[in-house]
């Protein structure tokens, strides 16, 4: 699904975030990306989303090289990015409106897109209700709680029926109970939809709860992907189980090794 091949990227000459960095995400997998701030995890997400361009190497999604945002990739950011002047309903509709604006050109919208107003409306209702904000359709973002805004942003993305979901610290601005609630919602979503997803987080527990595979990045130039397989994803209610705590400390150790030594070669 996603092939990152010999990726090079840095901001400016001296900086290096990725060098000859490669990994592959298979279709249907749920990944989390974790690392300290400044490690390039958001950059990696933007690169995959086509919002940043690699300085070297390439990223392919379904064997197609990414040079600009891809219509079937859904992106949810930490700051919900809702239009403040539009209601929840209008915000959820925004992606569909943009697609209608361009028509099925394959660049801004999928080339095989079909515009069926009735189906679109049903899909909007479905996702708003599924995310529990069906009754807030006519409210403006300023009238919602943070959690509700993030739900609206997720609905806006899912309405477009993406085949790949990218999320950049989607829940880090939320209070703990709401964050855990939304983690549960997103895990259920993945179980039902089997959609390929990549969620960036700085929270170790979140990485374990949401990721079937966990990619650990560090502050030195990332060359070798540190990938931790994880069978504990979805263990929302088991945060105090010994397994869960062990997994978390395994990740914590991986996060700490950075500057001292190059990671063991898997290549």
């Amino acid at each position, binding site marked *: 699904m996603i092939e990152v091949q010999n990726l090079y990227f840095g901001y400016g000459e001296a900086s290096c975030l990725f060098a000859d960095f490669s990994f592959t995400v298979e279709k249907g997998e749920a990944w989390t990306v974790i690392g300290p701030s400044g490690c390039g995890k958001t950059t990696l997400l*933007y690169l995959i*989303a086509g*919002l940043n361009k690699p300085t070297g190497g390439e990223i392919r999604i379904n064997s197609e090289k990414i040079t600009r*945002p891809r*219509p079937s*990739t*859904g*992106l*949810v*950011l*930490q*700051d*919900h*990015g*809702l*239009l*403040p*002047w*539009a209601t929840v309903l209008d915000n959820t509709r*925004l*992606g569909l*409106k*943009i*697609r209608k*604006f*361009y028509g099925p050109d394959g*660049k*801004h*919208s999928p080339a095989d897109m079909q515009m069926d107003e009735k189906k679109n409306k049903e899909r909007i209702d479905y996702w708003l209700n599924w995310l529990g904000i069906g009754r807030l359709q006519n*409210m*403006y*973002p*300023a*009238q919602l709680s943070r959690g509700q805004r993030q739900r609206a*942003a997720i609905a*806006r*993305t899912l309405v*477009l029926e993406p085949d790949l979901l990218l999320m950049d610290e989607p829940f880090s601005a939320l209070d703990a109970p709401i964050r855990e609630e939304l983690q549960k919602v997103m895990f259920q979503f993945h179980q039902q939809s089997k959609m390929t997803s990549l969620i960036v987080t700085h929270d170790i527990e979140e990485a374990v709860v949401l990721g079937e595979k966990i990619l650990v990045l560090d502050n030195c130039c990332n060359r070798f992907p540190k990938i931790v397989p994880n069978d504990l994803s979805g263990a929302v209610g088991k945060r105090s189980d010994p397994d869960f705590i062990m997994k978390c400390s395994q990740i914590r150790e991986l996060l700490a090794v950075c500057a001292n030594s190059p990671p063991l070669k898997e290549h």
Partner: protein
Amino acid sequence: MKKKATFLSTLSGTIMFFGLWQLAALAVNRPILPSPVVVVPLFLNNMTAELGLHFLASFTRVLAAIFVATVFAAPLGLALGQMPRIDSIASPLIAIIYPIPKIIFLPVIYVVIGISDFSKVMLIAIIIFFQILVVVRDEASNLKKELILSVKSLGAGRRALFRYVYLPASLPGVLTALRVSVGTAVAVLFIAEQSLTTWGLGYYIVIETYQVLMYPEMYTGIMGMGLLGMLLYFAIYAIELKVSKHMYVE
């Protein structure tokens, strides 16, 4: 959240205004301050005659100025707000020109553009131009990077960004700038119309009535100009309420 002006608050304001005017007229008791009881019927009567034409002349000039200013300032403001590098070059200049009262350029404009309606319109347009320019530029540069990115990720290119983000984001700013500057615009119009024209409320108030001591008629002109400012203010306000609903929610 802003506070809405209601019909009731406007009505009570109007009643108080005329009440105070009447009291002042009784207290002063001189020809220079006639009672509204005399002026209002005269005003209604004259509005269907020559005063109406003066009103129309002034109204047209302000509308034309608003149009010209918006057409030039809004796109320029958007462009500056989106291009920080050019903005950093232009903004010191704008900051210097912005607070200068543009009315002082009246003679210059008359000489350069010529004595015509066009030059009067241009003078007002320049005033409104800077108000809109600054507001739209700031609105456009204040848009969060994340907002733009997430709309881009929904498939928006330059055109869709303009249509769905920049345009709706700057419209409330344009309207607020217009509403705030419309008072200044009418004031400048009043001065500009005092010379080199025979139509307009400024001409009517100063030349046709004040200088020949026709005080009640002069007051009908003043009422006309007041009404002009008020009508424009509330018309823009009404559009604002429609466009910027999200700013007025509880």
